[in-house]
C-alpha cells in the first residue's frame, strides 16, 4: 500500500520554488496554486500532502513528525539543531550567514565584542571557536539598526545581495557559512516510509544535478 508523505513547505517565494521542483518531479497538487484559504493540499494519486508553514517552523513540524519531510534553510538547521536527517542540498535560496559592521569598524580585541543577531546559537558557536569573548544581543528584526545606533559593534545576519547593508553604510566583514535550502526528513518516517521518501529525494536530486550542470556550462 502506498503511504501518503506529509510535506511541510516554507511559506513565501522559496516555498513556491520548492513546490515547482516537486511538481516537476511528478508530485503535483494543482489545488495548491488556487488562491484559497485552505491550509492542506492533498493528491492521493501521487501520495503527497503539502502544507504551508512559517519557514522557521518547518524543522519543528518535521522533528516532531507532523510532517515526514520538509524544506528548511540551513540557517534554521544550524540555529535550532533539530534532530532530523538532512537529505539533500536543494541549491535554492542561496545566501550566506555573515558578520557585518559599520564601514569604518575596527575590531578592538581588548574589549568584549557586542554582537546583535537573530541567530544566537550560530553567533555563539562561531565566536566560541575563535575563543572570543562576546556579548550577544538577541534582536528579532531590523538587525542593521544595531551598529548604526551603537547598540552593538557587529551583527550576525543573513546576507543575500548586500544591498540593505550598503544602503545603511554597513559591509560584510566575514562569511560564517554559506546558506541554502535543504530537504530534511523525520528520522522515524524515513524508516517506515523509506521507499516513498527516497523516491522523492532522488527525483529532486536529479533536478539539482541538472541545474548544476547547466550552470557550469
Amino acid at each position: 500500500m502506498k503511504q501518503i508523505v506529509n510535506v511541510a513547505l516554507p511559506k513565501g517565494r522559496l516555498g513556491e520554488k520548492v513546490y515547482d521542483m516537486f511538481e516537476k518531479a511528478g508530485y503535483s497538487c494543482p489545488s495548491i496554486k488556487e488562491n484559497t484559504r485552505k491550509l492542506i493540499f492533498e493528491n492521493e494519486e501521487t501520495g503527497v500532502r503539502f502544507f504551508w508553514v512559517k519557514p522557521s517552523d518547518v524543522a519543528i513540524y518535521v522533528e516532531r513528525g507532523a510532517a515526514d519531510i520538509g524544506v528548511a534553510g540551513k540557517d534554521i538547521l544550524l540555529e535550532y539543531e533539530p534532530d532530523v536527517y538532512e537529505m539533500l542540498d536543494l541549491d535554492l535560496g542561496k545566501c550566506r550567514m555573515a558578520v557585518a559592521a559599520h564601514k569604518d569598524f575596527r575590531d578592538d580585541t581588548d574589549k568584549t565584542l557586542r554582537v546583535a543577531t537573530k541567530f544566537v546559537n550560530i553567533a555563539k558557536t562561531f565566536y566560541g571557536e575563535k575563543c572570543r569573548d562576546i556579548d550577544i544581543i538577541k534582536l528579532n528584526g531590523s538587525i542593521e539598526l544595531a551598529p548604526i545606533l551603537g547598540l552593538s559593534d557587529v551583527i550576525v545576519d543573513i546576507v543575500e545581495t548586500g544591498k540593505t547593508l550598503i544602503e545603511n553604510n554597513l559591509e560584510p566583514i566575514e562569511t560564517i557559512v554559506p546558506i541554502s535550502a535543504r530537504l530534511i526528513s523525520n528520522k522515524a518516517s524515513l524508516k517506515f516510509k523509506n521507499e516513498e521518501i527516497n523516491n522523492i529525494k532522488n527525483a529532486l536530486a536529479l533536478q539539482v544535478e541538472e541545474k548544476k550542470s547547466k550552470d557550469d556550462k
Partner: protein
Amino acid sequence: MNFQSDIIRGDEKAVFSLRSLYSSFGFKQFRMSKFEEYDLYVKNKDFLVSNEVITFTDGSGKLLALKPDVTLSIIKNSKDCGEKIQKVYYDENVYRTTKGNKEFREIMQTGLECIGNIGTYEVAEVVLLALKSLEEITDDFILDISYMDIILSVLSDAGLDSQQNQKILKAIGEKNTDEIKKICAEEKIDADRIVSLVTINGKYENVIEKLEKLCVTYNEKAHLKTFKEILTFLCDSGYADKINIDFSIVNNMNYYNGVVFQGYVNKIPSSILSGGQYDNLMLKMNRKDKAIGFAVYLDLLQRFNNTDKEYDVDYVLLKNDTDDIFVISKCVSELKKENSSVLVQNEIPENIKYRKAFKITAERVEEI
C-alpha cells in the same frame, strides 16, 4: 488485584511487560536513589544526552544532582567482578532537558545493562532483548543497527583531526552526504569510502555484499566478522525483517564501540530505544571490564495507541445533603453492579462526560 484494563496507560503497560521480559532472561532489578553526586556527571559530561543537570546542596554541603542518566550510576555502583557477568535492569525517572529545549522534563526510562567479561553471546542477547522490547510495544517496529568500530576505522583511515572527526560524525548522523563531501574536499581527502558507508542502509541480505567490499583492512574485516555473527544470530531468531543496517547511527566515539542501535516504532516521531556497547566509558571510569546496555524512553508511549475514552465516568449519582449515607451507599452498589464507575456528586460537574445521570428519590435511584 482486579482492575479495568482501560485505565492502564500505554507506558504503564509497557513497564510491566518489559520487566517480565527482562527478568525472564535472568536480569535482576536495580533500584537506585533519585540523587547522585554531581561530580559523577561532570567527569562524564559528554556521555549525557543533555548537559543540563538539576543540582542542589545537601545538609552537609555536598553538591548533588537529580539523576539525568542511569547508566553512569549503575557502573559506579557495580564492582569489577573479574570473569563474572552482571545483568541488571531498571525502571527509573530521569531529569534532563531535551535537545533544543532548555526546559527540564521528567522522563520515564527503563532499560538494562550487562557488565563484566562479556563476549559475542552477551552482545547478541542484549540486542535480541532490544528487539523483543520493541515487539512488546507493537509489531510495527524497526531496529537500526550499526557498528562503531567500523565507522571509526574508516574515519581514522582518512586521517582527520579530532575536530574534523566530530564534524564528520555529526554529518554522518544527519545522513548529510553533501556536508561530508564538503568537509572531505576542504581536507583534501577521499570522500567515497565515508559516503558509501553512510549510504549503506537496508536489510542484512541486501547490504552485506556492499559492506564486505568496504571493509578492507585487517581490523575492519575482524570487526565485520563479529558484526556478521551477531546479525546472523538475530536474523535466525526471526527478526530478519525488523533489522535495518544503517551506519548513520553514531554515538559519541569517546564512549561507544562495537554494536550501537536505535529502535523506532511506527507513529512515534523519534527513536524510542537507544543503546550500544560502551567499553570506552568503562575504561574512562578506570574499569577493565566491558559493558553493553540500552534504554527505552517510555514517556513517548503516553500518546501511543491510546484511544480517547468515550466517557470519563459511566454514571453520575446526585445526592442531597439530607440523604442517609447508607441509602447513598446502597444506590452506589446498585449502579456498580455492572462493573460501572460511579461518581457521587452534589451537582453535575462541568467538563465531564458521563453515560447517564441519576438522582435519589425515595431511597431509590432514578434516571434524570
